[in-house]
Every structure is written in structure tokens, then in C-alpha cells.
């Protein structure tokens, strides 16, 4: 069974997921995963679906574009590659939170450091509404930190980077949030 990954972008309104899933059903594609979000006024959705053996990816793409372009939605489709075996690194889940006034380079500054340490971002939410109220300028990173990471060094580097960027930062194991907020 082949899998494809489809992304859909466009101005948000009711009926977008219905249109995409309806078009996929017509082509006898089975949806395995969906994630959708709305940033300000814009919809973004990612769909992973299996396609029948006798369907060509190009045909599926054309059919989706035919249904979705008239609705003002952009579509991108690509075949999914299986992950190479044996490359997984053992990690632990952490949450990095920053608060502080907006300026150029905040996301690049933090994520550059994460990249240097081989830390993968699994979920990121950032909103910069401007002004001096730190609560309106927040980044929340859920990350996987390799078990072998030197926590003293990473914590120090993160604090230093946050200071340079004028941010308040906290790095916490995800377990803390689970324990505190979930019964």
C-alpha cells in the first residue's frame, strides 16, 4: 500500500476539511492522519492517506486541484518515504517556554541553539502580538532532547541565548506538566 502526504493551505472558512476528505473519498483514498491549524486567518492542513494500487499520484493530484483550486485552496502532494531503520536516538520530552517583547530573530535564535544540540521540535506554538506585554509574546516549544545531552551545559546555553534575545525562558521536563495538570 502506498502512502501520500497532502498539504492544503488557504483562507480559513467552514467546509475546507469536508472538501479535501470528500475529494479523497472519491479517489478511494483512506485517510490515516490529519493535523490542521489556523494561524490568524489562514488554514493549514496536513493529510496522510493510503491510495489504491491502480491510482497514479499525478492523477490524484490533478483531481484534488480540480476540486480545491476553485475554493481558493493550494494543494501540494508528495509520496511518503518509509523512515530509514535503526536511526532513532533515545530522547526525553521537554517543554521550553519563552516570554518577552517581540523583535527580529527570536525564533531563529532559539531554534538555532536547539539545532546545534540535535534537539528535535515536536510541537511549536509562537505568537508575537507586539507591545511590551510579555504575555502577548510567547513561544512554547515541545522538544525531544537526546538522553545523552549534558543538561547543565544546555540549560546554561539556553539561558545565555535567552538573555541575549531579551527573553525570559524556562526549560522543564514534560512530566512536570503532566503531573501538575492532569489527574
Amino acid at each position, binding site marked *: 500500500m502506498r502512502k501520500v502526504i497532502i498539504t492544503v493551505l488557504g483562507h480559513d472558512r467552514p467546509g475546507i476539511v469536508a472538501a479535501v476528505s470528500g475529494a479523497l473519498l472519491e479517489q478511494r483514498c483512506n485517510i490515516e492522519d490529519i493535523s490542521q491549524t489556523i494561524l490568524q486567518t489562514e488554514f493549514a492542513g496536513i493529510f496522510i492517506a493510503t491510495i489504491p494500487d491502480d491510482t497514479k499520484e499525478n492523477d490524484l493530484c490533478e483531481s484534488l486541484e480540480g476540486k480545491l483550486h476553485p475554493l481558493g485552496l493550494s494543494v501540494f502532494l508528495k509520496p511518503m518515504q518509509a523512515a530509514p531503520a535503526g536511526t532513532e536516538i533515545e530522547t526525553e520530552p521537554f517543554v521550553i517556554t519563552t*516570554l518577552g517583547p517581540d523583535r527580529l530573530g527570536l525564533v531563529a535564535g532559539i531554534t538555532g541553539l536547539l539545532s546545534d544540540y540535535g534537539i528535535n521540535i515536536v510541537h511549536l506554538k509562537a505568537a508575537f502580538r507586539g507591545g511590551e506585554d510579555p504575555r502577548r509574546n*510567547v513561544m512554547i516549544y515541545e522538544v525531544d532532547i537526546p538522553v545523552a545531552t549534558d543538561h547543565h551545559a544546555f540549560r546554561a546555553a539556553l539561558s545565555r541565548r535567552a538573555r541575549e534575545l531579551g527573553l525570559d525562558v*524556562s526549560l522543564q*521536563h514534560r512530566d512536570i506538566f503532566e503531573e501538575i*495538570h492532569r489527574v
Partner: protein
Amino acid sequence: MLTDREVLSTFEMLKNEHLDVRTVTLGISLFDCASDDLDRFRRNVHDKICRLARHLVATCDEVGVKYGIPIVNKRISVSPIAVAGCPFSASQMVEIAETLDETAREIGIDFIGGFSALVEKGMTTGDRALIDSIPEALTRTERVCASVNVASTHAGINMDAVYLMGQTIKRAAQLTEKADGIACAKLCVFANIPQDVPFMAGAYLGVGEPDAVINVGVSGPGVVKKAIDRARAVNPRLDLGQLSEIIKRTAFKVTRVGELIGRQVALKLGVPFGVVDLSLAPTPNVGDSVGEIFESLGLKSIGMPGSTAVLAMLNDAVKKGGAFASSYVGGLSGAFIPVSEDLRIAEAARSGHLSLEKLEALTSVCSVGLDMVALPGDISAETLAAIMADEMAIGVINKKTTATRLIPVPGKKAGEKAFFGGLLGEATIIHVADNGGSAEFMSLGGRIPAPIQSLVN
């Protein structure tokens, strides 16, 4: 995926409200160290503590950094030395205390508890030797903490032991007169002492406990105060029922974090996890005071009328939240009101809002008792003992723990200041009414019988 509210409220707790784990205490049984040869006993004690606790500080620091929650104090509690070292004389007990002190220094901890005796019903030769050694032992050591349990709901109050402790405290104060009687700051006298207290100076490892165990003291008067302040800022019309709900929820969170961290340390050290102690333990830092919570709840100062009601509500809400958060709750589990160790309580004692009598009333609804109370140096041993007897009676009748940590400050009078330094803080000496009027009562001695409440079977 975590919600923004979950993430941001946790951020707030950590950044601005001093959320930490107050103490991780490794309990170590010394019963298998027993010997009637002093050198061998001391060697056994040293070797066993070093073997089990060598990595305690590093492990706590490592877990603290990983989780982003500091573990403020790392400590050790041991089996009551009066039992483990029963054959030894008072002078030999002093040498044992020195061994404990040196071992604590070697592994990098600030306090080791368990220089203790349990004498609520009577004394063995070991108990007597240990109590006789306390003044010198606490003078010659820095890190050793002593406790003596003189009463229980099941045994009543051993008034001979209470009197003896009055004399012992006076002697300990005299031996450390240059340091305002600091030896007494490391000595607790208890009724109904729990076997698994992680907090000093009352920590020891009871006889029903495992060979080694991790007990955790969670805290956070600062977290509770800020939670109340924030809720009242958003809605000034909150009533006490709603505010106690906020305290309860906060205690739940603090306890969950404490247990998580304690279990991680226990796992890494390869010893079982014991209990979470739900006490609110203040330090002499701004924003870390139990006294401030009284102000957040509308009293001008702790000690004013209304204080006992506030403390009762606070203590109860903390227990309810904590008991839901953890199935293994133990130790003292209640708010501490140590006068010198809490800025606002110390201030209330200085300004006269908090008297000895009001402190005693407060202890009927919280966990500890007359804690870190500086008294005039000329107080008689009999009056000291009688103050302790009153405190023990509150514990015995109410089936709860009470304790005293009283410091008669040599050469100083009511209104003057005593300085103990560090976590022990400083305090204004409190006035004692009717010094000397209890001598005949104390001379009667004997054991006040166990109350009818003890007959529960």
C-alpha cells in the same frame, strides 16, 4: 499536546513563586551497625552512611537540573542513636555525634538527624546517656540534629523526661552562649513524633522503616501566597471557601512535583520511595514566608485575632490538596511556624503582635509547635519544661504531633535580638510571663497517664 494555559501557569509557578522541593532526605537504618565496641560502631556508621549516601547530593542536583526544579536541601536521617548505640555512655555518645558530623561533612550535606531518643514511657540506659550527651554533642558538632520524644497519645506525658529536657536545653544554651544558644536550635522535643519526618531538626528514621528510604519535604509558602494574591487581584470578592479551594489546588500541584522528583532520586539511588511530607516550610527569605500568607488573607499580621482560624484553614486546605495528589503522605504534613526562620513571623514577634500564648494557640491547629522561639536567658529549667509540658499536652490530647524548639538565649532579655545565621535566621526574644511559677508542679514528676482518646481498639 499541552495547552497554553497549562504551560503558562507552570511557567508562572516556577519563575515567580519559588516552586522547589524543600528537602530530599535519605533515611538510613543503623541497626546493623550495632556493636558494643565504640570504634567499631563508629566505623560501621560512617561506612554505611557513606556507602548509601555518597551520591545523594550529586543525584539530587542532577535530577533538579534535569527537571528544572531545584532541590534546596539534601539531608540524612538515621535510626535513633539511643537505640542503635544503646550500650554507650554519655561521653561515648558525644563521640558518636562527632562521627555523624564528620560523615555529613564528608558527603556534603548541611544536617543529619537522628541523634534521638524515644522516652515517652520511660528510659533505657542508652536513652539516658544520649540525653545527657546532648548539650556537649550539639556544641561540638555543627550538622547533627537531636530530637527527644517525651509524650504520645498512647503513653501519656513522661514528665520526668520533660523536666530533664528543660535542664538539658538550659545546659545546651549555656555551652553555646557566645552563639546565642545555637545548640538549642538543633534540638526538638516531641509528642507523637512521626517515624518518617524529612524536615530538620526532627528528622529520624523509625524502627518500622526500611533499611534505606527517600522521604521528600515539599513546600512553597511562596507559591500559596502568590496563588492567593493573583486570585484576589482578579476577583476581590472571593470568599474564604473559594480561597481555600485555591490553596488546595496549589498544594496538589506542589505535592505532585515533589513526589515526581523524590521518586526520580529514589530510582537513581536504588532505594525505595517513602513519603511526601506536605508541610509548608518557610525560610528567612522574602517571598518564602508562611506569615505572608496571613497577610494575603487579610490580616495585618500573623498573631492578630483571626490567626488561628487562618492557620486552621490553611493547614486543612494544604492537606486536602496534598492527600489527593499523593497516596504516600507522611511526616509532619502541616504548616510550620518557626519564629526565627520566617521573616514575617519574626517581625510579628518583634512588634509584639505575636506572643508566646498566641503561638501556643496556633500550634493546636498546625503541625509543629513552638518552633525556633527565642526566650530570655534567665528562664528557669522548670518554666522551660512547663512550657514544653503544655505543648505536649496539646499533641497528646489531639492525637497529633507537637514539638518545641526553644532557645533560652544566654545573657539576653525579652525584646533583645538573637542571631542564629543562615537558614535558622534571627529572632526577637519573646516575653515569658510568670517565670518561676511552675517549679512545684514540675517537681511532682511521674507520667501523666494516656488520655481516654488512646483507647481506640
